[in-house]
Each structure stands twice: as C-alpha cells, then as structure tokens.
C-alpha cells in the first residue's frame, strides 16, 4: 500500500489517477444531490415556524460548512507543501481556494435570502455572518497573492504562509467577533434559537452536505489536473500524453 501512495504523490501518476476518479465523484455528487433535493423538497415537512423559507437550509448549511472545511484543508495541504516541498500538495491548495471562496460566497448569498423573510433584513452584523465575510476576505487574499506571483514555486510558498497565518487567526477572529457582537447586542437579531428539526430535515441536510463534498472533490480534482498540465507542460510525461493524443 505504502508504495502505491508514494507513487501517486508524483503529479504524473496522480494526473492519470485523478482522471479515473473524477467520474466516480461526479456520479456520487449527482446521486446525493438528487436524493438530497428530493428529501428536502418532497419528504421534509413544512416548518411550523418558518414555513417553506427554511428549505434554503439544504444549501445554506452545506455551503457554510464547506467554506470552513475547505479553508482548513487548503491550509493543511499548503503547509505540507511548504514543509516537505511536495509539488502536488501545493497544487491542491491552489486548486481548493476558488471552490472554497465560491462556497463562502454562496453561504453569504443564501444567508441573505434566508434572512430577509425571516428577520426582515438582508444582513445583520451577527458573529457568524461577520466571520463568514472575513473568511471570504481571507480566501480572496490567498488567491490574489498567488495570482500576483509569476513564479509558481514562490506562489506556492507565499500562499502557504498566508494560509497558515490565516488558519491560526481564524479562531482569534471568530472569538473577537463573537465578543464584539455580544457587546453590541441591542441592534442584532438572535438567530441562535434553532427550532427542533424534524429528522427528515436533518437527513436531507446531511445528504446535501455529502453532495457538496463529492462535488468539491470532483471539481478540485478537475482543477488540479489543469494546474498539473499548466505547470508541467514541458516535462517528458506530458509530451508522452500528447503523442497518445490523450491530453
């Protein structure tokens, strides 16, 4: 087994492996998505407090969770890349960032559309919303830094440092925002009173979380493959692939 893993840590063999894995994850994502949406819209009952508007939860919560998970996963791979100088893990970090930023945006967007009918306002300076917004800034910072650096190796390392600094700061930022929010309680709306969820609602949400995972993995693998090709375009194995007409 061990040998296999090392084999796939080289971009060349990983490229082929990822190509085989993508369809599996795409199929899994579609299955979970269809199942999750079916449960979400046809099985889960209407919420007695929020009416039908709560159905946004089936995308809002997965998006919010993914946005946070992906940042940690991104920082993890970036750190591995920095510590062990493994090209593939740095490429993974770079490939994760846009998807993470997208989920952060979606969490904010769906949150706003959920907030308007429920609290009567698109946005409140709630601790969670504010932290999500700052997380979005952190993603943008990571991506802009990498985009500004021409040399890919320097981009990997610089990105890794800012990702690690970000991940160390996320708890500090979160707690300071939370504290700030309780200080200014007057203006904010309490969203902590989560109504008891029907078990079908929970199932639907968890299935949608699985769908987001599968989608993220598929899309990240797809992006990693492009990044590998971009970076290794002059290496022998890419030329080899070209000859076979299989690039």
């Amino acid at each position, binding site marked *: 087994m061990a040998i296999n893993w090392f084999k796939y840590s080289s971009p060349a063999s990983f490229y*082929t492996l990822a*190509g*085989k894995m*993508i*369809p599996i994850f795409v199929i899994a994502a579609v299955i979970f998505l269809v199942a999750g949406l079916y449960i979400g*819209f*046809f099985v*889960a*009952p*209407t919420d007695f407090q929020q*009416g*039908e*508007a709560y*159905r*946004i939860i089936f*995308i*809002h919560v997965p*998006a919010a969770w993914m946005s946070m998970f992906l940042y940690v996963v991104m920082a993890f791979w970036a750190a591995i890349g920095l510590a062990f100088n493994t090209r593939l893990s740095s490429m993974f970090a770079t490939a994760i960032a*846009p*998807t993470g930023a*997208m989920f952060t*945006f*979606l969490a904010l*967007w*769906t949150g706003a*559309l*959920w907030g*308007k*009918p429920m609290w009567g306002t698109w946005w409140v300076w709630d601790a969670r919303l504010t932290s999500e917004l700052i997380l979005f800034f952190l993603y943008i910072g990571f991506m802009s830094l990498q985009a500004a650096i021409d040399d890919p190796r320097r981009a990997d390392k610089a990105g890794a440092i800012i990702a690690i600094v970000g991940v160390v700061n996320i708890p500090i930022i979160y707690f300071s925002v939370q504290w700030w929010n309780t200080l200014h309680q007057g203006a904010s709306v309490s969203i902590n009173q989560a109504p008891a969820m029907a078990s079908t609602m929970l199932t639907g949400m968890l299935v949608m979380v699985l769908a987001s995972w599968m*989608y993220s993995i598929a*899309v990240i693998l*797809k*992006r990693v*493959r*492009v990044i590998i*090709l*971009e970076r290794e*375009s002059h290496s022998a194995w890419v030329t080899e692939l*070209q000859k076979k*007409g*299989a*690039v």
Partner: protein
Amino acid sequence: MNWSSWSEFFSMGGYGLYVWGSYAVVFLCIVAEVLLISNRRRTLEKQYGHIHDLNK
C-alpha cells in the same frame, strides 16, 4: 407529499423568490465554475495543438 400542484411548488408558500433565488445562484455558480475550468483546459489544449481525444 408536500405539494398539491406545480404552482404551489414554485410559490414555496410565498417565499418562492427567496428559495428559488438561492437555488438559482447556487446552480449558476456551479455551472460557472465547471465552465471556467473546462475553458482553462481548452486554452491549454490549444497551446499544445493537435489534440483530438479528450478522454481521461
């Protein structure tokens, strides 16, 4: 079953705009992300020239 008709399904108990507005943007983002990646790949393939087969 929650819905007795399609129009009831689309109106989402009066919250249709919010619910479908959320799902539509999620859908758009996913489509845009996939298209952007394929596009990036296609540009690359153009640089390489003569690529016929797009398999894995």
